[in-house]
């Protein structure tokens, strides 16, 4: 037995020796044409997967299976070189720059291509733009970088997502957000769990040729996120850290101080009494008696601080003058730490990262922190099998007080609680008596109430690549995306929302499990000067979202939010919502002579979301590219380096319609008297289907003088069968039915330019600029007009067209508000003037009325910008880099509903006023835009009208970054690969005439008391070992 074992070992060793005898070790150096070493060159033994990389000195070593093998040297931007080994053991090579084409590999739908061969409209954003920015999520860093991509952050809540739109708004009411695909697998749910520093590149697919392969989910464009992968060679360890301070983005409009508000309230009471027919003396008495009741507090040290005209008696001490904004807003601290390890061998490559992000927030009670972990591993199993796993784990926790118009929103509180209201009473306890939001002291609530949200997320994708033959390749991928979120809201028993029930706690847990399986078979064949590729595939996916919620009231022990502390349980709830999809897809590509590129794709999607009569949909596309500059008939102009024309046409769909939108349903929970009940909640529409988008694109890529590149895109997106909750008469019971109602068109032009100002060894400078236009137009609605809030939907107009009464100013004779009658408007059928109409005393020549209802509503522009885009500048000199991005948005309008709350003209008498309200009409101040201030005003002046529509155009310095890289020699002596230190500033300044904190409001142009955006200055460094 022992002998046998020894024999086997011997045999084994001999076998090994035998193979060694066959192979040959080759080493050498790779340099560029200037003789400088090239690190990171890939060397592959032709026909195998054996490979190696050059090190920092350009040195490589590789084992070739035999002396007559060939080595292939490749490097981005260099011509690929094939060198036969010919039994040499040293092979030094020089790689030439590839002047013809910068053939960069692009990650595209279900595969890769080169920029050269691509027929669609897509933009690649590399990690330089995304890394080292003090943002929680990568999409915030994309603003202004790419033509046609609109990113808007309407809330400064730390960790909050942004609204991302590609080429306008394609839908009326279904989601308009793009599809996000992470490492080839479509994501389900939020993208803000991804650590921006793990991202290698982002590809934005804009037209149908680019995105149609994603079928019924591609209508709003697709964003492909590719994370970093390990490379074979030295193990690289890098650590980066940054620390920043943040503040709200601007000061906003001024609010009244306590004296101004007290005086204004006095005047409101006085005016109220005068309008009631009282004498001046009576009115003054009335105002003196009531003013403290209206304001809620006497902010002065004396009993009667005002003189007979309602002005503060000079010398009166002001005891209370609270700046509620100072109480609510604070300086935030943003910290990020990232540790990456990457490396691998020829067979196994891996990338690992650990990241921590913390934003303490600029508003009391709000913050965000996140830990992320990424592990990407790939392994070559044998000559034809390769497997890999991309895993992403994250945990985030945020405190997020509510937004909107509720009492618990601290942002709203800061605006509406008047300055005469103290934060603390005389004894140092919170004071709860303010008149604007009684019992809701935001400082007290921030300390006592809780809004805690936690999310755990795991996105794990595994894949197996099979090289069936040189022509046939097969990839199977399976992915799971699971996020588990916990929420806990706690209202303290004493004050605010919980006071009536002696405290309330509500907890919820949701679990979103999405899965995805895809199998893709590709066949490719190169022949002389042509290339042919066919892709066939199948995909199935599904998602189950389940939620469990419970609540209790009646808390005996204060400050203990867990449900066990409450005495009375409330109605708990649980439900699961699911959807499934099954798809088949194919794509054919053909390249001829690197001049002509053709592609076509088709996909069939069957979805559980669609109505019975419309379960399956077909989506297809055609694209073509023509490299004009390579045509023989083209004159060989030296100034023209590149000219490529692209054209595409295709269809896609939008399936963001809710999981069960086609079914007629009776919902649960309509309980009565302790008996369980059912109630109709939704009307059936068995024809309900995806929204159909037809998009066409013409693109032109040009390069001049080796310095300037320009790209133009002209696009047209026609959406048809738009989903809309069609309003129905109340007589039908349920106010609407989800229907494929209308058609919409988005068309526009995008242009981007990049100019290399200076490009020498030590000095590099470039400037880039992009501009996008988008015209959004509703083409067809089955209902003639749909009025929805501030908007009017109708054929020929934008989805976000404002429709309301037109403000005509203030009548100088009596301080009443005026609106233009606009009798010719089609709001009311008849064009007769109402009795209340009169000639505009301000001399517009039009008829005005002071009766709100007698004025007709009018179309008043829309909230989408006419043009938007960015400008970026890069400068590097020796070891210094400077770059900045500007973002601009021009021509959009906003309805400033936040401002209304501070311009209430007396309707919300206890609420604070903007300083602008001090300009209210008085007999001595007749020409003003602010009506007479009257307590309990009934003049309707604060009703929806163009008085509150503002121009929301702006230019913003999005980011400035100055960095210093330690010279290579110093790094080496410190045993570092590299060291970089930088200062970066986000949103440093904004030019705008908008009155609120931030002109970057929600995409529909309505402000909603959101936490204002932030400006951030950070310092950071990055070390590589």
């Amino acid at each position, binding site marked *: 037995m022992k002998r046998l074992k020894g024999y086997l070992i011997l045999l084994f060793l001999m076998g090994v020796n035998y193979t060694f005898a066959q192979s040959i070790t080759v080493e050498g150096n790779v340099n560029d044409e200037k003789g400088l070493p090239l690190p990171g060159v890939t060397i592959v033994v032709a026909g195998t997967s054996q490979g190696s990389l050059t090190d920092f000195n350009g040195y490589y070593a590789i084992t070739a299976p035999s002396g007559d093998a060939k080595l292939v040297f490749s490097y981005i931007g260099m011509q690929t070189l094939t060198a036969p080994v010919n039994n040499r053991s040293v092979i030094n090579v020089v790689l030439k720059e590839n002047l013809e084409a910068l053939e960069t590999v692009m990650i595209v739908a279900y595969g890769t291509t080169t920029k050269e061969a691509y027929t669609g409209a897509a933009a690649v954003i590399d990690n330089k733009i995304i890394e080292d920015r003090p943002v929680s999520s990568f999409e915030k860093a994309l603003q202004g970088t790419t033509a046609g991509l609109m990113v808007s952050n309407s809330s400064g809540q730390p960790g909050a997502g942004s609204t991302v739109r590609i080429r306008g708004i394609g839908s009326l009411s279904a989601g308009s957000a793009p599809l996000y695909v992470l490492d080839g697998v479509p994501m389900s749910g939020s993208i803000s769990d991804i650590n921006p520093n793990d991202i290698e590149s982002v590809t934005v697919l804009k037209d149908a040729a680019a995105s149609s392969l994603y079928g019924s989910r591609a209508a709003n464009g697709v964003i492909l996120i590719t994370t970093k992968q390990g490379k074979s060679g030295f193990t690289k360890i890098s650590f980066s850290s940054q620390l920043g301070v943040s503040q709200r983005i601007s000061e906003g409009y001024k609010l009244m101080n306590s004296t101004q508000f007290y005086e204004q309230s006095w005047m409101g009471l006085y005016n109220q009494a005068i309008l009631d027919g009282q004498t001046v003396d009576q009115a003054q008495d009335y105002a003196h008696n009531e003013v403290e009741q*209206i304001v809620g507090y006497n902010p002065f040290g004396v009993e009667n601080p005002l003189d007979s005209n309602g002005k503060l008696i000079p010398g009166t001490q002001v005891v209370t003058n609270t700046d509620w904004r100072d109480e609510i807003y604070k300086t935030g601290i943003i910290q990020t730490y990232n540790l990456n390890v990457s490396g691998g061998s020829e067979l196994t490559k891996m990338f690992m990262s650990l990241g921590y992000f913390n934003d303490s927030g600029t508003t009391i009670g709000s913050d965000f922190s996140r830990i992320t972990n990424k592990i990407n591993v790939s392994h070559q199993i*044998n*000559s*034809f*099998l390769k497997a890999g796993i991309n895993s992403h784990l994250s945990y985030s926790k945020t405190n997020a007080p509510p937004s909107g118009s509720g*009492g618990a929103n601290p942002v709203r509180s800061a605006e509406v609680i008047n300055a005469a209201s103290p934060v603390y009473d005389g004894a140092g306890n919170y004071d709860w008596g303010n*008149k604007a939001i009684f019992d809701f002291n935001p400082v007290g609530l921030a300390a006592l109430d809780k809004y805690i949200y936690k999310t755990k997320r795991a996105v794990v994708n595994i894949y197996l690549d*099979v090289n*069936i033959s040189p022509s046939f390749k097969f990839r*199977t991928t399976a992915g799971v995306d699971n996020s588990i979120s916990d929420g806990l809201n706690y209202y303290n028993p004493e004050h605010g929302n919980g006071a*009536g*029930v002696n405290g309330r706690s509500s907890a919820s847990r949701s679990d979103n499990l999405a899965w995805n399986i895809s*199998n893709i078979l590709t066949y490719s064949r190169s022949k002389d000067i042509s290339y042919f590729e066919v892709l066939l595939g*199948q995909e*199935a996916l599904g998602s189950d979202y389940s939620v469990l919620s419970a609540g209790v009231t009646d808390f005996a022990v204060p400050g203990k939010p867990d449900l066990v502390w409450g005495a*009375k349980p409330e109605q708990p709830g649980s*439900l699961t*919502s*699911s959807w*499934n*999809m*099954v798809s*088949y897809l194919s794509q054919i590509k053909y390249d001829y002579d690197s001049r002509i590129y053709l592609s076509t794709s088709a996909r069939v999607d069957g*979805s*559980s979301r669609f109505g019975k009569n419309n379960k399956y949909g077909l989506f297809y596309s055609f694209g073509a590219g023509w490299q004009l500059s390579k045509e023989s008939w083209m004159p060989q102009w030296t100034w023209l380096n590149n000219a490529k024309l692209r054209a595409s046409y295709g269809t896609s769909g939008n399936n963001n319609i809710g999981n*069960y939108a086609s079914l*007629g*349903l*009776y919902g649960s929970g*309509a*309980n*009565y*008297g*302790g*008996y*369980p*009940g*059912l*109630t*109709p909640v939704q009307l059936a529409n068995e024809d309900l289907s995806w929204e159909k988008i037809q998009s066409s694109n013409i693109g032109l890529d040009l390069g001049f003088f080796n310095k300037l590149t320009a790209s133009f895109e002209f696009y047209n997106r026609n959406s048809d069968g738009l989903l809309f909750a069609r*309003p*129905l*008469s*109340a*007589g*039908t*019971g*349920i*106010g609407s039915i989800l229907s494929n109602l209308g058609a919409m068109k988005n068309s526009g032009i995008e242009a981007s330019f990049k100019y290399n100002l200076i490009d020498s060894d030590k000095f590099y400078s470039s400037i880039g600029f992009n501009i996008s236009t988008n015209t959004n137009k509703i083409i067809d609605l089955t*209902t003639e007009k749909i*009025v929805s809030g501030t908007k009017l939907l109708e054929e020929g107009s934008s989805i976000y067209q404002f429709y309301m009464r037109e403000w005509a100013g203030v009548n100088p004779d009596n301080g009443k508000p005026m609106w233009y009658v606009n009798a010719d408007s089609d*709001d*009311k*059928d008849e064009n007769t003037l109402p009795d209340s109409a009169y000639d505009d005393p301000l001399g517009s020549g039009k008829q005005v009325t002071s009766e709100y*209802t007698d004025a007709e509503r009018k179309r008043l522009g829309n909230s989408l910008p006419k043009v938007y885009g960015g400008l970026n500048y890069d400068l590097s000199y020796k070891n210094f880099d400077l770059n900045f991005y500007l973002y601009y948005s021009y021509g959009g309008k906003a309805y400033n509903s936040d401002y209304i709350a501070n311009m209430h003209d007396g309707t*919300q*008498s*206890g609420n604070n006023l903007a300083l602008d309200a001090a300009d209210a009409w008085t007999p001595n101040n007749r020409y003003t835009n602010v009506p007479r201030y009257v307590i*309990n005003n*009934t003049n309707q002046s604060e009703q929806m009208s163009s008085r509150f529509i503002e121009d929301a155009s702006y230019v913003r310095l999005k980011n400035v970054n100055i960095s210093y890289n330690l010279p290579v020699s110093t790094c080496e002596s410190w045993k570092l690969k590299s060291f970089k230190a930088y200062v970066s500033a986000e949103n440093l300044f904004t030019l705008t005439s908008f009155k609120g904190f931030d002109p970057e409001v929600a995409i529909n142009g309505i402000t909603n008391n959101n936490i204002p955006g932030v400006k951030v200055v950070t310092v950071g460094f990055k070390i590589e070992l």
Partner: protein
Amino acid sequence: MKIFIMKKKVLNLIKTAFLTLVLVSCSNDFLELEPTDAISEKEVFDSYVTANSALMGAYDQLSGFNFGGLYNPIMADIMGEDVMINSVDNWNWFIPVYQMTLLPNYVYIDSPWWAGFKLIYDANSIINNSIYIPDATPEQITNLVGQAQVLRAYAMLKLAQMYSPAYAKNPEAPSILLNTGTDDLYSGFERATLSEVYAQIESDLIAAASQLEENNDKGFFDGRAANALLARLYLDMGEWEKSRDHAKLASESLTLMSLNDMFAGFSTRNSETIYSIAFTQEDNNTYLSLPSFYWPVGGYSSMRANNNFVSEFSAADARKSFFLKYDEIDPDRYIIVKFGHNNSVGNAERICIRASEMLLIEAECEAELGNYSEAQNALYEIQRRSNPGVSKSTATDQALIDEVLLERRKELFGEGFRWQDIKRRQLPFIRTGDHWVTYSFTAQDPDYFRLTFPIPQSEIDANPALSNSDQNIGY
């Protein structure tokens, strides 16, 4: 060789997996999913259990704060002279209702309209489908349909009273939409005349009154409740005899609540309750309840009584103690302690119909019919409960009617009658005293339009059969 075999195996495996997936995913169940928190409308009337749950759902719709739970009763008194809502510390609830400066896009106009029609729709489904329930007995079907008819009639009557001018003024005036169950979603509905709507209500109630048995659980409509609503309907129409007869049927053999019951907060049903919304803390929004607004502490607590109204009560009238002056809460105006919290804020049933109202209807009708002594007796019945020493009225004719109407204010204030009483009687609207918005106009003044709600703008915009010219006068 080994590698080659393995490759072949792997390829076969992949082929099989691929085909399996393709075949499995073709199965139809994969694409036919249903929610877990709702059921298909087709299943609702497949069994009595679910159909009965749909009836509970309809009652729930009635009990919602934007209809029977709060908006109906509170707005009907705020649109009157006897009570008011504070302008401060009230989160602006009902301010424009009190100011009577309502616009067609206001939530107070919009939400009761939609809530009421949703209730009508719920009831229509039950009335039109219950006959097909396979496992229901004829009694069960009769009961389901009968209750749904009362629910529909209740909703229609409330909506008609709010959104149309008074029947007494013009029975042919445009009223509400009349839909008893069409599948046509898209043509819209014209405004039916008041007489058409009242005829529909009448037929529903007569059918229900004859079919429904008495139910001991007063949280549900029964035959007695149907009669009570008929009494209200005929009162609006000035059909005094019919109104009196049905009022009698409705209150027959009921004992009036005691004075003690009266001061128990109107939060639980008692001996004279004919229908009460079975409000529970779990199912309803306790902040949006009558006591939350009326009771001086705990909720919004912003309702106050007008000083002139309070002075109408004689000192011997126990109901006078519903009003208190309490400096720490409000140094200026009377607080109201009629509607109380039952142990916790807003936990209170909402008594919609009670025998006292029926007795007052009887009194009013008898007075109108010239049966003065019957009228005086019925009136006395109400008066003596809160003032045992009161002498029976000797008034006749209009004086007696006026006395009954005043008694309605005293007995029923806060319960949601005043607005319609003014309208159906075409009384002048006079707000004086410590009201912070005063009015004085008669039924002949243009301002009288304020007593009729506008048709919601949302309805006009969504309903192809209506245009802005169908709007009520004055808006």
